[in-house]
């Protein structure tokens, strides 16, 4: 379980999180939706300690991750995997080295075992014969899938997905959603997915949180949010230009 309490964060004069309260249930897939620039990615980075809040509390499995030692924070981070919006692959390494890196650094597996696990992880995300390619030789979709393979490889208890399917074609998008669903069923990890893929994301998420103006507007099951009467949520889900959410 991840709990954010009264979280405030501003960058200069721009308030991004304004008293956010949210509890992410353990072992379930929770989708975070909301208009762009409402602090969804910022919230995700607070969960893993990449950003420090101006005020508020962040707890992972009942333990605060604020003001703790670096080694303790790293121990907590070992429970996490994260897929970044722009994949964040190491551009000085090829695909194989990128995926193998956490295994080489965090486990004592032999080279053969690492090789087998990397190839199998890449096949799981639909990639073959790309091991020797460098990241600038990959398409956006391939980069995301390599990053996904890297995030899933150590079987973390909690996985944070920052827009895992943005910019991908519909078939790959569906395949990745399916992959997240299947691996979740297999390993039972806690997943937090920031996504704009509406309505597709409702098919895989058990819970949906709607963020608006740096606060949690609504939290409920996918069905509850889909049938929400809240005008902001309704407008966002329908993609209508008319309503309380103004573009400018």
């Amino acid at each position: 379980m991840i709990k954010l309490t009264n979280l405030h964060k501003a960058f200069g004069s721009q308030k991004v999180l304004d008293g956010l309260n949210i509890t992410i249930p353990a072992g379930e897939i929770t989708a975070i939706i909301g208009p762009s620039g409402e602090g969804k990615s910022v919230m995700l980075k607070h969960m893993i300690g990449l950003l420090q809040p101006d005020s508020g509390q962040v707890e992972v499995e009942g333990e605060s991750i604020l003001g703790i030692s670096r080694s303790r924070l790293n121990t907590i981070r070992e429970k996490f995997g994260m897929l970044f919006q722009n994949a964040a692959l190491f551009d000085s390494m090829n695909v194989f080295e990128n995926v193998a890196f956490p295994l080489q650094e965090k486990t004592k597996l032999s080279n053969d075992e690492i090789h087998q696990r990397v190839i199998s992880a890449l096949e799981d995300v639909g990639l073959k014969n790309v091991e020797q390619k460098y990241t600038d030789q990959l398409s956006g979709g391939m980069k995301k899938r390599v990053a996904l393979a890297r995030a899933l490889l150590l079987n973390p208890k909690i996985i944070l997905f920052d827009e895992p399917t943005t910019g991908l074609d519909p078939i790959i998008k569906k395949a990745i959603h399916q992959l997240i669903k299947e691996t979740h069923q297999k390993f039972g990890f806690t997943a937090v997915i920031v996504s704009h893929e509406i309505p597709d994301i409702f098919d895989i998420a058990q819970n949906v949180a709607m963020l608006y103006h740096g606060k949690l507007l609504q939290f409920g099951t996918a069905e509850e949010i889909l049938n929400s009467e809240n005008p902001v949520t309704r407008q966002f889900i329908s993609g209508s230009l008319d309503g309380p959410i103004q573009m400018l």
Partner: protein
Amino acid sequence: MSNLFQVIGNFSLAVISELGRMGWFLINSFTTIFRNPCRPVFILKQLSFLGAKSLFVIFLTAGFTGMVLGLQGYYTLTKFGSEGMLGTAVALSLIRELGPVLTALMVTGRAGSAITAEIGIMRITEQIDALETMALDPYKYLITPKLIAAMIALPLLCAIFDVVGIYGGWLVGVKLLGVNPGAYFYEMEKAVVWRDVSSGMIKSFSFGIIIAWISCYKGYYAGHGAEGVSKATTESVVLTSVLILVWDYFLTSVLL
């Protein structure tokens, strides 16, 4: 008036905060060496980048610096009829001062800027964040290997600079201007003592720390986008060069 005080106060606070962050960065980089040792292969890679790949520019700079010293030294010393002291003048200038400083400035221009750009790009493309989310210490993978490599490479490059520079001076002084070759080396051997060499090496060692420290720090805290990295790179080269010259003065006054 109160506005002016506010501006001065804000500026002072920003400077103190930046200095504190820089100091903390250096302390963290050093403690990581002992707390969380990195793999030798990372250090070897950086040694190759900072050291071996800087050799060409060091040879070129050292050769021409020695040759200019040979020319200028000869011109000055002939006024006193002491052109036999040319070897001593060239060697002491290089070993005590020019070798360490010019080597450091060349490495700053060639490798320091590249280090800042590399780490800065890793910062803006979230590669450093990715390391952190894997519970891996970015200092261990990115900073410490560069710091250790710079501390090893700079004294070695400086030694090469000194030798090449001395032969540059010999080429001009002995081969072109006709200074006695025996006097060139004999006088040098008589005048140069171990203290001269060690002070040059101490300088180089500390310049290595400055180069790695500032280059890594500026990249690690680079601003947003390509402009942020470009600004960080410029600041890194300027600040490193200025710090090298300022620190050189203080070290010279202590080591003299």
